[in-house]
């Protein structure tokens, strides 16, 4: 399309009054009728050429048409020159001009009609029908023999028959030109806004409260770019129950007090968009659809056009943008919709990037801290386990990541010839669990330092201390741990134990070649203050073995999603105890079978295993 011609072509319209005037002017010339007639005919050919040139500027330039125009023009001028210098007789010129005019009109009619059919844009096609009639009238006037001999009629009708052509084209020119001008303005506006937005976002990225500011910027830019009456950003609240207004500009019909929309609101279009994860564009909204924006129709009655775009990333959905127009007959266009979508996508992309970046930084920081915490924690458990001729203890402990919620302790009292073994599993993983582990360890050592007390009493006091002193009686921080504690008196071959919600203590009986389980005697610690834990006693024989483990061992899974489980542990325990004599060997073999079982599957919990062999 020759859009750049549009600005100039308005001047062609001036030809219309000139044409009408020229007919009359020619009549006033002091010439014979034949001469006047010839001038009028040539004038009309000349004018129609210029006119044709102008019309063609609306279509894709067609070389054939331009060829005809230039050739005709050249011939016309040459003939006029010949006539002027008297080379060719006047009658010949007159005949030629009439023939040329007739042929030319037919050609012109066909060319312009088909050009419009093929290449004309929507606006130019409007003219196709009137063009047929106009051309018809024109041909009749131009070729009618009776008219040709009446110079006065000719002088009025010839220019007029061409002149009426200008009117529809002038109208179309107006439509196309103003439309184009508006479009160009809008495009420029959009591009400017886009650049501004990019610049603002770039600046915002260097500041604090990035997300808030990007959303503010987004709302402002979208509203500006689409020239909407109101634009709003809703974000999902923490429980995913409400859409809350995060940023609002202009007029937007939502309830003024709460500024939020509940998930339970039936058929609400915003929630619909969130559910479907798809944008919505209603150029001309119906009263039924209007109800779905907000239930109060008084508030929404002015809304005429709406766009809703959810703020989605692959991982999550955090809200939506919506814009409206309130005036009737001025709906959003598909371009507005596209612009809004592009801007939203860009904003979401920036937010998500920022989010990932911060997460990464945080993770790195946490990892560093976890390393330090892990070192501290390792210094809190026995580095070497005491051995004696009377018992043999070995421990395997492996935190899931650096720090552990599992805790074991072995306290050997040489003077009293007793050894206490504790295993404890704090609920949860990571930092909270390991902090609680440290609390338990501190309390446990405080109690144990005061001399021997029954295991049940130790756990009772430990529990009380944790609940009342350390947790301050607070229920909100919900930390609890399962705990099992036993003391072995090798001289008496006696074991006394207590168990607060922990997995059963397993004892391998050498004489019967079987396992006996000693299950929990009370609740885990950290739940209730006033729990009394029982102490029970049992006797060990030579070569009997005691096993304590945390549920990380039991819950180890293999590639088939099977659990290692208690039964498998018992079976392997019997097998290894029979095969090996020292606790260290038994433990090593037990751990190996577990590792073989799990294969390449990563563990999901901290794991601890304590084996004691009596009088090996």
């Amino acid at each position: 399309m020759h859009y750049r011609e549009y600005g100039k072509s308005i001047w062609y319209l001036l030809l219309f009054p000139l044409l009408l005037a020229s007919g009359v002017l020619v009549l006033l010339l002091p010439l014979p009728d034949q001469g006047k007639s010839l001038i009028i005919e040539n004038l009309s050919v000349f004018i129609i050429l210029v006119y044709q040139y102008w019309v063609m500027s609306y279509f894709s330039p067609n070389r054939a048409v331009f060829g005809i125009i230039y050739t005709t023009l050249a011939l016309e001028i040459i003939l006029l020159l010949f006539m002027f210098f008297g080379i060719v007789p006047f009658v010949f010129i007159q005949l030629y001009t009439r023939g040329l005019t007739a042929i030319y009109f037919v050609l012109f009619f066909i060319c312009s009609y088909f050009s419009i059919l093929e290449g004309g844009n929507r606006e130019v096609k409007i003219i196709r029908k009137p063009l047929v009639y106009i051309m018809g009238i024109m041909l009749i006037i131009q070729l009618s023999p009776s008219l040709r001999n009446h110079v006065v009629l000719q002088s009025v009708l010839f220019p007029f028959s061409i002149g009426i052509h200008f009117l529809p084209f002038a109208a179309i020119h107006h439509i196309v030109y103003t439309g184009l001008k508006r479009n160009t303005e809008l495009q420029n506006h959009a591009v400017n806004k886009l650049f501004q937005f990019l610049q603002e976002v770039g600046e915002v990225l260097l500041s604090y409260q990035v997300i808030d500011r990007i959303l503010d910027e987004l709302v402002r830019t979208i509203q500006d770019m689409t020239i909407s009456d109101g634009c709003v950003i809703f974000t999902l609240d923490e429980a995913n129950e409400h859409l809350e207004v995060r940023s609002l500009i202009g007029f937007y019909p939502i309830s003024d007090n709460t500024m939020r929309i509940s998930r339970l609101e039936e058929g609400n279009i915003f929630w619909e968009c969130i559910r479907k994860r798809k944008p919505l564009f209603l150029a001309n909204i119906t009263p039924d659809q209007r109800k779905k924006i907000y239930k109060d129709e008084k508030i929404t009655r002015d809304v005429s056009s709406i766009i809703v775009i959810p703020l989605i990333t692959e991982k999550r959905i955090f809200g939506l943008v919506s814009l409206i127009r309130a005036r009737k007959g001025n709906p959003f266009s598909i371009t507005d919709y596209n612009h809004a979508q592009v801007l939203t996508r860009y904003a979401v992309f920036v937010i998500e990037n920022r989010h990932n970046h911060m997460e990464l930084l945080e993770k790195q920081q946490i990892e560093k801290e976890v390393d330090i915490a892990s070192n501290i924690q390792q210094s809190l458990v026995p580095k070497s386990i005491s051995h004696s001729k009377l018992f043999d203890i070995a421990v395997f402990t492996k935190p899931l990541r650096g720090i552990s919620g599992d805790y074991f302790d072995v306290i050997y009292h040489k003077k009293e010839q007793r050894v206490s073994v504790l295993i404890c599993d704090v609920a949860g993983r990571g930092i909270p669990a390991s902090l609680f582990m440290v609390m338990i360890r501190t309390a446990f050592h405080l109690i144990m330092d005061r001399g021997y007390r029954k295991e049940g009493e130790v756990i009772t006091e430990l529990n009380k201390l944790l609940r009342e002193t350390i947790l301050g009686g607070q229920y909100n921080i919900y930390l609890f741990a399962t705990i099992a504690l036993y003391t072995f008196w090798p001289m008496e071959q006696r074991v006394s134990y207590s168990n607060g919600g922990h997995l059963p203590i397993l004892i391998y009986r050498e004489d019967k070649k079987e396992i006996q389980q000693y299950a929990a005697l009370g609740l885990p610690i950290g739940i209730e203050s006033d729990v009394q834990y029982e102490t029970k006693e049992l006797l060990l024989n030579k070569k009997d073995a005691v096993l304590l483990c945390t549920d990380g061992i039991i819950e180890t899974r293999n590639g088939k999603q099977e659990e290692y489980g208690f039964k498998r542990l018992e079976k392997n325990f019997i097998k290894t105890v029979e095969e090996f004599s020292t606790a260290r060997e038994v433990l090593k073999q037990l751990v190996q079978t577990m590792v073989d079982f799990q294969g390449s599957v990563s563990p999901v919990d901290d794991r601890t295993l304590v084996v004691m062999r009596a009088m090996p």
Partner: protein
Amino acid sequence: MNIRIEYSKLICILHLQGDLDLFSAELLKRQFQLQFNRGLKQLILDMQQVEYIDSMGIGSLLYIFSETKKRNISLHIVGVHGTPRKVIELTRLDRYFPLAESLQEVLDEFDEDGGHEDEWS
């Protein structure tokens, strides 16, 4: 994990579905707080469709239990079976938690107990 919420009068039933582990425990806690803020008086946790529970899951149950106890909200945990039941028994929490066999049992109990009906309405 999915949580489906059902109301009848001031009773709120949370139907849990899926694994109750580290991740879903947070979700359950949050959902409970939300329901709690709405002023519920009776809470039923339906664990019929929970096949797995870990220590954090137990922790979230303990949290809900202590919160309801503190604020005089009646709590029932129903339909605990399979692995979760084993875990709860192993940790001795079976005697501590208000467990009930089935949802119907608990609802029947509410219906029979006409004295409370007035308080609800």
